[in-house]
């Protein structure tokens, strides 16, 4: 069974990706800060196909050891889905420096470090899939999400150069850019703002986490072996 590490897998998109990976026949290492009822249910239903590993990515110093332990426990992974992130809503002029630092640490530094160390067993295997979860905010922008948008643009940039670095080793690196979805992360967008996003979509509705998880499923598959350094946008057309 191929191993897929999904960060931020306790809820929202990460949980949907974990569920899709199980359906696709992978063994999932679901990483998150705290167990949720939904993930516990998934663990109970598919105990052979998924394990939970607790980790808080604000602890960047421990990422190396965490990655080594994961590889030792589960074997060399086939895929890594860098989904864990925090969202802080607020205009830059009044956003606290601590919040800015946390966004940069958890949304950029942590996935880069985790990728650095999970990449190594993939290099030995000469194959693998890395998927960085960005956002359409990285290219479209959104009032009150300047730092969050910057972190997501950083991940997309990271994807492109890393894809060039590791392509010769048979490892693909791609970005998923979901649009607004009804998850805990976009809870600040509920109400009129969410309705306005929904109205602007050519399809008249928002993308779901399941839609985005299908895109991840493709990027993890053998069939995507010639797709690297690119971004798949799943936003029901709202950014077109």
């Amino acid at each position, binding site marked *: 069974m191929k191993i897929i590490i999904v960060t931020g897998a306790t809820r929202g998109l990460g949980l949907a990706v974990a569920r899709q990976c199980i359906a696709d026949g992978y063994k999932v290492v679901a990483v998150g800060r705290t167990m949720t009822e939904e993930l516990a249910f998934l663990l109970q239903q598919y105990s052979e196909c998924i394990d939970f590993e607790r980790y808080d990515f604000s602890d960047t110093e421990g990422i*190396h050891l965490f990655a080594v332990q994961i590889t030792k426990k589960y074997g060399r992974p086939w895929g890594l889905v860098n989904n864990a992130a925090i969202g802080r809503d607020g205009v830059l002029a009044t956003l606290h420096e601590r919040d800015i630092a946390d966004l940069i640490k958890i949304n950029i530094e942590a996935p880069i470090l985790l990728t650095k160390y999970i990449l190594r*067993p993939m290099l*030995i295997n000469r194959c693998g899939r890395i998927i960085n979860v960005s956002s359409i905010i990285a290219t479209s922008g959104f009032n009150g999400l300047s730092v969050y948008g910057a972190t997501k643009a950083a991940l997309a940039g990271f994807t492109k150069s890393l894809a060039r670095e590791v392509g010769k080793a048979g490892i693909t690196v791609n970005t998923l850019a979901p649009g607004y979805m009804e998850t805990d992360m976009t809870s600040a967008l509920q109400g009129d703002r969410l309705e306005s996003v929904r109205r602007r979509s050519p399809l008249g509705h928002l993308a779901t986490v399941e839609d985005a998880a299908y895109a991840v499923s493709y990027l993890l598959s053998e069939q995507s072996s010639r797709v690297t350094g690119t971004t798949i946008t799943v936003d029901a057309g709202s950014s077109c």
Partner: protein
Amino acid sequence: MKEKIINIITEIASDSGWEIVANLNDDTVLLESGLDSLGFAILVARLEEELLLDPFTMMDEPVYPRTLGEFVKIYENCSS
């Protein structure tokens, strides 16, 4: 340690179809040895898996060895 490292370099080169210079020695410049930067990343990954250590991560300051001798020394110091 030196023998182990040279063996792994040879294996990586053979797996990848890269040609390694004859007579690898302490003075061989790493990037002129026949392995490119990706090859060295694979070497560090292999050594970490086999020796359970990555001296470069353990260092307080970044160090980029230029020759095979410098590279071997770093691993010898770290594992002693």
